[in-house]
């Protein structure tokens, strides 16, 4: 019943000095969902880039329904039935939904060669959206909608462009980590959308969340070092095996280093009383002791992200107080919070954590130019800056030839290690992390968990805010659950007595 929709044979792509992809072959049946997994740098992005016409393969061939497929560029690929949903949404926020859906394909709606038939565009976009049971007003600007809705729009756009406009029967949709910024509920919605589309399209699905890959895909391709090393049916493999295949090393039981989890803590470090910020959180109370890891769970919009920002001093609160080691830092500047020993790892690494055009050493020292790397006259100690960076390149095994490499050239995991170094070099008392392992490969993840454990051994208090529940459960001593800005529950997460995801979710939603 199924027919071969897409086939790639021996795709090879080299960059100067690097074989990014070698002899990758894959086949996709109509209506099939292919999962693509591999560590960062395994070649997943390169493969997607070739299929979607952004790169051209050095060698190898591709076919769509038996016909040779050689996309000239991304637009050409779209015309031939391949569309891609990007990790970072490629929608223009101030344009309306319908304008976004047909962006760069407006010529189809031209009347008399110049006049854009907007009514027809709106009508068509309504059709497309309702086909997917999406209740979205195409006249509203995209920015009006939540992140998950924006993603739904993007998927709708990807699916419809080929099928509606270019009469491609079964489009191939490439999903590049579509769920990485979604909350649990939104992921469910996302599955529903994929389910609805399954009879009209085929998918290649890339994700770091292996459980998702297992749940959603029919066939899984595993990539490693630029090669597809295995093709396996999702029913024949479990998460642990998949993980082992991917990284080529056994996933140890103590991925979260639970054996190192402390049971006895020191003095209270952070104490938060009745903290409120309108529209975000209300009457929040918390005490964190030396060596303790407190997890904060909650769906997106529960106020947990804003709470983290408030604790780190990057945003002001309305009422309540935050004290660290008995110093009141409520509504003081972030510089003050940093001086008191607070470090903050933001969620949006590329916007808030790392300056791409800065070398590693400059990024690491950025929060220490007032004291450690600079003196009171504002002069910098460049030698110390270099040496600090070198030290962290080594101790955190950041993969870069030297400390002068620009951070934009590093992989996500290595960038995150640079952000961590920025705070590790200081006399840290409290580290607040917002989704610290998002978009990071499992190897680097494990290293980050180990680092957090080591920090607690040195008496540092840690607050982890995360959408990844397994991570929270694994790493935390206790977990706070927020819902609609209110702390609804607190759960112990002791070794050998960890709560389940289900338990957490029941309080979150």
């Amino acid at each position: 019943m199924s027919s071969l929709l897409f086939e790639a044979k021996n795709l090879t792509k080299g960059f100067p000095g690097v074989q990014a992809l070698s002899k990758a072959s894959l086949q996709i049946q109509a209506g099939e969902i292919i999962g693509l997994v591999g560590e960062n740098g395994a070649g997943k992005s390169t493969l997607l880039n070739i299929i979607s016409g952004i790169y051209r393969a050095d060698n190898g061939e591709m076919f769509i329904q038996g016909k040779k497929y050689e996309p000239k560029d991304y637009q050409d690929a779209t015309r031939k039935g391949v569309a891609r949903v990007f990790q970072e949404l490629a929608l223009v926020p101030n344009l309306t939904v319908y304008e976004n859906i047909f962006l760069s394909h407006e010529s189809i709606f031209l009347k008399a060669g110049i006049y854009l038939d907007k009514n027809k565009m709106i009508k068509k976009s309504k059709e497309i959206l309702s086909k997917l049971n999406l209740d979205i007003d195409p006249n509203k600007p995209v920015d009006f909608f939540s992140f998950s809705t924006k993603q739904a729009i993007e998927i709708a756009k990807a699916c419809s462009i080929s099928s509606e406009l270019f009469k491609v029967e079964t489009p191939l949709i490439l999903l590049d980590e579509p769920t990485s910024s979604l909350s649990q509920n939104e992921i469910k919605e996302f599955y529903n959308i994929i389910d609805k589309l399954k009879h009209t399209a085929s998918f290649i699905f890339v994700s770091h969340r292996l459980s998702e890959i297992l749940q959603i895909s029919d066939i899984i391709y595993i990539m490693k070092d630029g090669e597809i090393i295995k093709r396996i049916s999702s029913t024949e493999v479990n998460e642990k095996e998949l993980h082992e295949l991917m990284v080529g090393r056994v996933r140890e039981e103590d991925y979260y280093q639970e054996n190192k989890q402390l049971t006895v803590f020191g003095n209270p470090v952070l104490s938060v009383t009745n903290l409120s910020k309108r529209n975000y959180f209300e009457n929040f109370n918390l005490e964190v002791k030396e060596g303790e890891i407190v997890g904060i769970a909650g769906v997106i919009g529960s106020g947990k992200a804003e709470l983290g920002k408030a604790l780190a001093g990057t945003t002001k609160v309305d009422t309540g107080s935050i004290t660290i080691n008995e110093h009141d830092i409520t509504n003081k500047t972030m510089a003050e919070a940093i001086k008191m020993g607070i470090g903050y790892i933001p969620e949006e690494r590329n916007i808030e954590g790392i300056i791409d055009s800065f070398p590693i050493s400059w990024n690491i020292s950025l929060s220490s130019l007032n004291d450690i790397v600079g003196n009171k006259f504002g002069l910098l100690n460049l030698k110390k800056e270099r040496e600090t960076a070198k030290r962290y390149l080594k101790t955190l095994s950041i993969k870069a030839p030297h400390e002068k490499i620009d951070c934009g050239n590093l992989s996500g995991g290595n960038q995150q290690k640079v952000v961590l170094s920025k705070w590790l070099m200081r006399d840290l008392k409290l580290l607040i992390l917002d989704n610290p392992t998002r978009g990071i490969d499992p190897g680097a993840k494990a290293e980050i968990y180990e680092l957090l454990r080591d920090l607690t051994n040195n008496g540092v208090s840690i607050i982890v805010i995360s959408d990844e529940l397994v991570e929270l459960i694994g790493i935390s001593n206790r977990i706070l659950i927020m819902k609609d800005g209110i702390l609804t529950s607190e759960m112990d997460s002791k070794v050998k007595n960890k709560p389940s995801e289900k338990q957490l979710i029941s309080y979150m939603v």
Partner: protein
Amino acid sequence: MSLQPQVPNDNFRQQNPEKQKNNDSEYSKKMILMKFLPLISLIILILFFSIINSQFLTVGNSLNILRQSAVLLVVACGITFILLMGSIDLSFGSIITLAGVLGALMIVHTGIPVILSILIGAVIGVLCGLINGLIFAIGKVPSFLVTLGTMFALDGIALMIIGGSPVPVNSSGFLDLTRGSLIPGIPNIILWSLIIYLIMIFIGFKTKFGRYMFAIGGGETVAKMSGVNISRYKIYGFMVSGLLAGIAGVLMASRLGSATPRMGEDLLLDGIAAVVIGGTALTGGVGGPHKTLIGVLLIAVLGNGMNISSVDPYLQIVIKGVVVVAAVAIGLDRKKIKVVK
């Protein structure tokens, strides 16, 4: 924004260190070429003019070029910091005029010591920069608009003060400030500008202020999340730019022997062009004061070379425009710039 995605730079995300090394060396070869492109262009330009005109590469003319570029170098150093922040300053030409006019008037009418006239220029420049900075950083008005406004306003003030006619200065002490030679054979103006240039390189790379200029342009949010007081350093940036424009104004008045209305006008576009040709991106975060010297010399050599080869003055302007665009198009390290606006 186009539909073209940001393609991750896969060739650097490889985990294999040996492959990385290989790749690194090829990459850096290209980078080195790009890095020295402004210098190579300058050398080619100098060779070109010395071939077509025997008067060009003489000691006299070389000193002339340096003299002509000295004031430009002083202001361009200040503008470098503004561009590093990703901002723009359109008012520094007017600051030059105002500081030059007031400095000259003080010398003529009160006979103050020369050093004080420099100080007056500096203070005026800093104040103008402070106004720019406050409106920009605290009032959150785009720097383009703020400085467009102050450009007109300051020009107007200068015109009101001198009523449209030049202020000639005959004080020999004041003229010696730039025309004398503390080091035999080298006019003071060249000496001052080189000293200021070196100080600015020091400030750019060895001070917190300099680093924050890079940080604000490269990733303002990141800097903020690292505890940097963004607004304060934005204001500082404009004050430094104003300071140098103010000093440049007095130096220029001394060099010309008079302060004239709109005397800073030509320096505005030359200054921005020199910084960008040197390799500091308009989008911020990339470049640095050290690169600005080459840009300044390129502009000066081009102007001088065309002048002594008697190129039609109107054609000169056209050629300058073409060179600016070409130099930026070829030389800019676009890899580091995410969005070109």
